[in-house]
């Protein structure tokens, strides 16, 4: 094959594949019918490949959206559940570790303010139960929110 033909055909392929303009080929294409046919067939092949179509199944996007939405809801609930349990565990651990200090502190407040012992015990009980009560409240609130979203 003459060099001009080889160079022209490489340029045509490079144009389509790489998007590279390797220089003018029109001059050679005007003179060489074989290369002109090569260019036409190349363009035809690419246009045909581009035109290949498929029939998308009915409601594919809808079914997929529904399934993804369900999964996303499960994941949100799962994440929140773990965060809740971890915070509860930390809360209990901190509470147990600090309980003697808190009790001594409340006793000191009771002695200096005249607060009766029952008040000291009540204050200690509230301090002990408050984190769990807050966490339970948050959990119930979030559960209600999710239920309202689902409705």
């Amino acid at each position, binding site marked *: 094959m003459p060099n001009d033909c080889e160079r022209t055909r490489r340029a045509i392929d490079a144009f389509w594949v790489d998007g590279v303009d390797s220089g003018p080929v029109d001059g050679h294409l005007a003179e060489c019918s074989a290369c002109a046919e090569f260019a036409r067939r190349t363009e*035809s092949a690419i246009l*045909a490949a581009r035109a290949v179509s498929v029939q998308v199944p009915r409601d*594919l996007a809808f079914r997929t959206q529904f399934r993804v939405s369900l999964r996303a809801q499960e994941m949100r609930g799962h994440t929140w559940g773990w965060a809740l349990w971890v915070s509860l565990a930390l809360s209990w651990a901190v509470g147990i570790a600090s309980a003697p200090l808190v009790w001594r502190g409340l006793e000191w407040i009771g002695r200096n303010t005249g607060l009766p012992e029952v008040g000291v015990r009540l204050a200690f009980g509230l301090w002990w139960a408050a984190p769990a009560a807050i966490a339970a409240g948050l959990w119930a609130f979030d559960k209600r929110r999710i239920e309202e979203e689902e409705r």
Partner: protein
Amino acid sequence: MTWFSGVAAGDRTALAARLRQRDPELLELLIQQYEYRLYRYLMCLCGNPTLADDLFQETWMRVLDRGSQYRADASFEAWLFTIARHLVIDFQRRKRWETLDDAAEEFTAASAPSAFDEVARRERESEVHGAMERLPAVQREVLLLRFQEDLPLDEIAAVVGAPLPTVKARLYRALATLRGELGGAHA
């Protein structure tokens, strides 16, 4: 509804953030927007409409699960097609397909003519389908990504997990084969 079509760099950052948050509105939009393109890509790889349907859904489940892995410096299309491709490969390994071309007959059957007034178009399309199916799977894939998805070569290389020269070589060979198969029938 084409905000994410050809997403610019700044938009990709927003896209990545919303994928990390598993934004339901975003996912709905993306599923709808990429429905045809992703399904077409899966059909190109596996050739089975039922399987492509299943893998389409699984692809988006993975997008949901792994949204935090999308990097804003990469094309979303390339990431999406890479996920789909990996799912096809996983399926092939489970089913022990030797090549993707085992499903070629089913793909051709799905494209058979179905309406009298579309016979000519269907026949031509069937001829193109047949020519594409006779290509090795790896060549068919890069042909689709280049000329149907219009992905740049570097993104195609990222999707198929091959070096850039390999991708180019496959494209040149695919083009040469297709040119010979289709001949002068599509003036």
